[in-house]
């Protein structure tokens, strides 16, 4: 390969266009190298942001061929071989307002983040002059979530956010809420968690985009599961998401398998389920569901229930 063609989405505040730049191929370079080289040698008007160049400031995230990456951390060779091409398309992060070219506006996101009180609500176990003590075990609970560098990669890739900017919080905001909710020094986890519940926590698609793309490998999916558990422990079980999850837990305990006929009823209640009658008829006609089918318990259901008992004991201990 002799050259790399960089096709960049431009925006000058009014109009949008794509512009191509040819760069000589050099082994072992990063995306940020390419952008910098274009700006320094080919087009000084190209606008992008980067601060640390060491994957700690989070400012350089961009999308390349439809996927978000940290520009300073991602090697060009990796992209060229992944996409088997010498032409790469650069775009600003999705689900952000664009300021110019590849630079996005973080202000609305920070405003949104305030919802979850992204600060420590100190417990009485410490104070300003003496500080706080935290066990190693408690520290480990926050060590991964505090790795977040607010790069926005997760938000760019989030499927729910793409369809619903107003009623869903960005994955990094969920991470922020989690980070304080599990901090042993925080006195009011519910104050971080409740806003998440009120802003579509259960609307997450479970698509795993956030956890797959986060450059800091933060396990955002497990954090979301924790937040959902926490809302249920707070007594918030009368919503579709919680009822749906519970239906699975109960069905497996009763029979070992899911009962698809009663699932909507358990999730949505009788009235809402009635509105699904045309849908149900569509399925019954093709034999996809049989409303009179009563599933039998699986072989070994007693054993399954013993596992439930054991898990319950673990939870309480």
């Amino acid at each position, binding site marked *: 390969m002799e050259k790399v063609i960089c096709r960049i989405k431009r925006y000058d505040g009014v109009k949008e266009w794509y512009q191509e730049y040819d760069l000589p191929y050099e082994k072992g370079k990063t995306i940020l190298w390419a952008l910098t080289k274009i700006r320094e040698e080919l087009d000084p008007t190209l606008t992008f942001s980067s601060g640390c160049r060491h994957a700690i400031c989070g400012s350089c995230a961009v999308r390349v061929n439809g996927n978000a990456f940290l520009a300073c951390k991602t090697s060009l060779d990796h992209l060229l071989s992944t*996409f088997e091409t010498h032409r790469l398309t650069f775009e600003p992060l999705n689900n952000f307002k664009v300021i110019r070219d590849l630079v996005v506006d973080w202000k609305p996101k920070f405003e949104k983040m305030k919802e979850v009180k992204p600060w420590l609500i100190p417990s009485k176990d410490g104070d300003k002059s003496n500080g706080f003590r935290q066990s190693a075990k408690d520290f480990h609970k926050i060590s991964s979530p505090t790795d977040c560098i607010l790069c926005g990669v997760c938000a760019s890739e989030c*499927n729910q956010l793409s369809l619903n900017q107003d009623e869903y919080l960005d994955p990094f905001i969920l991470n922020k809420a989690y980070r304080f909710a599990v901090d042993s020094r925080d006195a009011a986890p519910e104050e971080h968690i409740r806003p998440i519940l009120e802003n579509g926590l259960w*609307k997450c698609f479970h698509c795993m985009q956030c956890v797959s793309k986060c450059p800091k490998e933060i396990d955002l999916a497990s954090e979301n*599961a924790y937040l959902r558990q926490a809302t*249920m422990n707070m007594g918030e079980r009368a919503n579709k998401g919680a009822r749906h999850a519970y239906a*699975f837990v109960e069905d497996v305990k009763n029979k070992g398998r899911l009962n*698809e006929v009663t699932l*909507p009823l358990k999730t949505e209640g009788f009235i809402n389920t009635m509105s699904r009658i045309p849908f149900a008829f569509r399925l019954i006609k093709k034999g996809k569901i049989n409303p009179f089918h009563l599933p039998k318990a699986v072989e070994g259901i007693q054993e399954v229930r013993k*596992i439930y008992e*054991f898990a319950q004991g673990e939870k309480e201990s």
Partner: protein
Amino acid sequence: MRYGFFPGCTLESAAKELMLSTKKVASALGIELVELKGWTCCGASHIQDVDDFLATSINARNIALAEQLNAPLLTVCNTCTLMLRTAKQKLDQNDELKAKVNQGLDKIGLQYKGTIEVTHFLWVLIKDYGLSRLKKKVKRPLEGLKIANFYGCHILQPPHIMGFENHLNPKAMEMVAEVLGAESVEFDQRLACCGFHAVFPAEKEVMKLTGINCLSSKKAGADCIVTPCPLCQMQLDMYQPDAQKDVREDITIPVLHLPQLVGLALGFEPNELGIQRHIVDAIPLLKKRLVLV
């Protein structure tokens, strides 16, 4: 070739045709599927939202049942694969958790050892069975059939658990399609999410997504969508009439399960593969494109 078979709940109910087509295709290829006795629901990406230890424990039981057969565990559902592999990875990487889970399993005379693989039908075709061998079995090349390969999230992501191929640019579906003689179209939503897991709490968004997914495949010139996941299949097929309500253009496109596609190439007729059970009728299209009885 012998596998412990984990059908997953949908194969017993709404996706019975996937049970049928998987068994037919496996037997035609000479792959022995031994259904796990007493398998339970994998939790379908929901049980961990109530209790993650429980989610790991029930899947440790499922895997331990396959270990007793001493055969790899084969799935045909992306989410089952992800749930089982997640449990397996947690147990294999955390001795303390493994010991605790085994304490529970001990009470029912089982042990999770970590001796078998959890794999997916699509991966088995490529890695264990082999594409050249599959090619030799093709009796009715699917020439002229244009398909949109819809992977679904959970067969690819997160990569540290799935990891069969590059999650940013996978090839498995296209490789199988090529061997069967079908043509894969390029379309924007190839690696999109189907939204199935949030269809109750986020109905509005999920319907919108279904519309986008169907239309993207259709506009790219596909005759039908093919997917390795019964949940994607259900979402894109069963809910298509609902998704249509908000889209001006016609989004109608049939959606096949991967084993049905393979089955057609092996010479089975659509009814033998349960294709008549889909909400969007695929049979007129198949009659037009393929030589059917």
